[in-house]
């Protein structure tokens, strides 16, 4: 079972290494990891996608909480969350007709062509996992030259009373 874990950490040197090393050492799996500054100064937010049963997840959460630089760990997967990933894909375009076909796909997926060369197109798209993998699947037959992904980020929806879930 996949889990999205949101972690608040203090911006200390080596904090990424600490979190990553913990996953490796304890045999937990990282599917993707994304890090950036949070709304508070000196505090960063990490989004980690991991997999495992409830027991594994409990250990992951506790072991992360044990790190001094980690302020808070939340498993936000079962909650009401908005998840996004940004990808850049470079695709082969052998002929004009293929290029037209790809551009059509780009429009359907509300993606963007960000760079054009004689025989390639570079596409930018953001979306949830379903949308990202959907586009990639359809682009594959054309010949994908390169994919760059940011890793998923997630944010919890706000409840009616203004409290964060």
């Amino acid at each position, binding site marked *: 079972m996949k889990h999205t874990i949101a972690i608040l*950490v*203090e911006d200390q*040197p*080596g904090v990424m*290494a*600490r979190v990553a*090393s*913990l996953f490796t*050492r304890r045999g937990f799996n990282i599917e993707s990891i994304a890090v950036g500054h949070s709304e508070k100064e000196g505090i960063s937010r990490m989004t980690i996608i991991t997999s495992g049963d409830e*027991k594994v997840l*409990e*250990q992951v959460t*506790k*072991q992360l*909480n*044990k*790190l*001094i*630089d*980690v*302020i*808070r760990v939340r498993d936000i997967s079962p909650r009401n969350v908005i998840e996004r990933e940004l990808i850049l894909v470079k695709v082969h375009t052998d002929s004009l007709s293929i290029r037209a076909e790809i551009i059509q796909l780009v429009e359907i997926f509300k993606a963007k062509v960000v760079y054009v060369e004689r025989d390639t197109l570079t596409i930018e798209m953001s979306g949830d996992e379903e949308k990202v993998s959907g586009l990639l699947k359809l682009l594959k037959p054309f010949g994908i030259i390169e994919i760059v992904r940011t890793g998923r980020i997630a944010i919890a929806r706000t409840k009616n009373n203004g409290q964060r879930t």
Partner: protein
Amino acid sequence: MELSGTEIIVESLKQEKVKVIFGIIGAAIMPLYDTFGKTEKLPFKNILTRHEQGAIHAADGYARATGEVGVCIATSGPGATNLVTGLANAYLDSVPLVAFTGQVPTYMVGNDAFQEVDITGITLPITKNNYIARRVEDLAPIIKEAFYIARSGRPGPVLIDLPKDVQQARCQFKYPDKINRKGYKPSYKGHVRQIKAAAKKIMEAEKPVIIAGGGIINANASEELQKVALKTNIPVVNTFMGLGSFPKNHPLSLGMLGMYGQYAANQTISSADLIIALGTRFDDRITGNLKQFCPHAELIHIDIDPVEIGKNIAVKIPIVGDLKYILHQLNDYLDERKNSSWLIEIKKIREKITPQLEEEKGELRPKYIIKCINEFFKGEAIIVTDVGQHQMWAANYCQFMHPRTFVSSGGLGTMGYGFPAAIGAKFGCPKKPVVCISGDGSFQMNIQELATAIYNRLPMIVVLMNNGYLGMVRQLQELFCDRRYVSTSLAGSPDFIKIVEGYGGVGFRVNKKEEFYPILEKAYEMNQFVLIDCQIPQEENTFPMVQPGSSINKMMGVEQS
């Protein structure tokens, strides 16, 4: 007041009331040692060991014997990497340490400079936290935080890397009053509702047993443990790390459990219906085959580290917090009870098989040596051991009466730990007798510390159980490899008496049983460093034992114990 980085370190150590530091100098840490030299009244003793591993084990032994934070110092590069085993050892046994390492100047860090090593990277998984001080202004807050983190919550080792230019830079010094780390708030008070639920469960159980682990000693909760056990007449088994937390001669004490534990302890917890686990992490050496561990029992688990709860064993009532505080509270919710039928059942288990300290004449055997140590010191000495068969003999047969009188490497099983740790324990407790029980294999792993012990005129006794083998592994080869003793013979060992004499100490060799007690007496009266080389049978085994992977109530060699 404006101070240099190294002056800040000395002042900070003074503020933390550090009394002794163990270390070895080197180029990158020279500024700090130079400040020791310039300081008129150095507020702590500066002890030079002969290997950095000796330094950190000594700091560790000091910490375990006193309950205070141990401090050690090493230079950059190889000095720092020599601390690695000691840090891992302290981390696995939850020992509060602060280790300082020299580092190349900040402008050279990352360039593979001479004696540069990424020690914070290397020690990341074996320290509770570590730091590299990049600016002199950071030093005092880092040291304050390091000591606080090392000793609070579940204790552990912390490392501070000190680039040479940071040691030499100057800034205003003010030692912070407190630290505030958002991500570090150990919880001490257990949940009241859980404590009440635990009390109810304890009163309802028919066959309750307490497993007292090292957490009792770290929390200084021996007294509270005894109150709870005595009020409710619940038998107590100790984990290896918990030895000393409950007096071994008490009728409720069943001794150590686990792979090399007592038969009665293992049988008792196997038939229990309630386990009250206090400050233990259910290491595999305790549980044996997890699936068959305590099949009839529900579990109350009290520990300060939430990670340990539910890690290996499913828990009915988990309580996170400080054992001293929680046991005190729990005691209030408990009523007196007699437990008669359960205690009679245990008595029957014990009568079936009780470890006998053998009486036969002639051969000098390990259990007899321990018996003499018990008779002579009556549980008042600090017993420090190395790792191997002698360690298990000591753990099983020494009459531990008080917490912090058993100092030994548990989780990591570090051969070479015992002797330097005994040196540290003696520095920490100069008025208590310190006996280091070691083996001919372990002792040679840090034998160079003879210089530290003898030069500093430490009155201590090393009892060397000399069987010419790496005995514990030899035993496993005997049992599981058809006696193919590959690489376990220690042929080529030196004459230990001559070695000790070479360092200026005193050594005695004991071959016969009747010689041992008088020599132990004499050694103690000499009030100086004495090594007793005990020639024990080469193929003496540590029994009973549980075969690795087997259930703990199935013990081999029960008849021999």
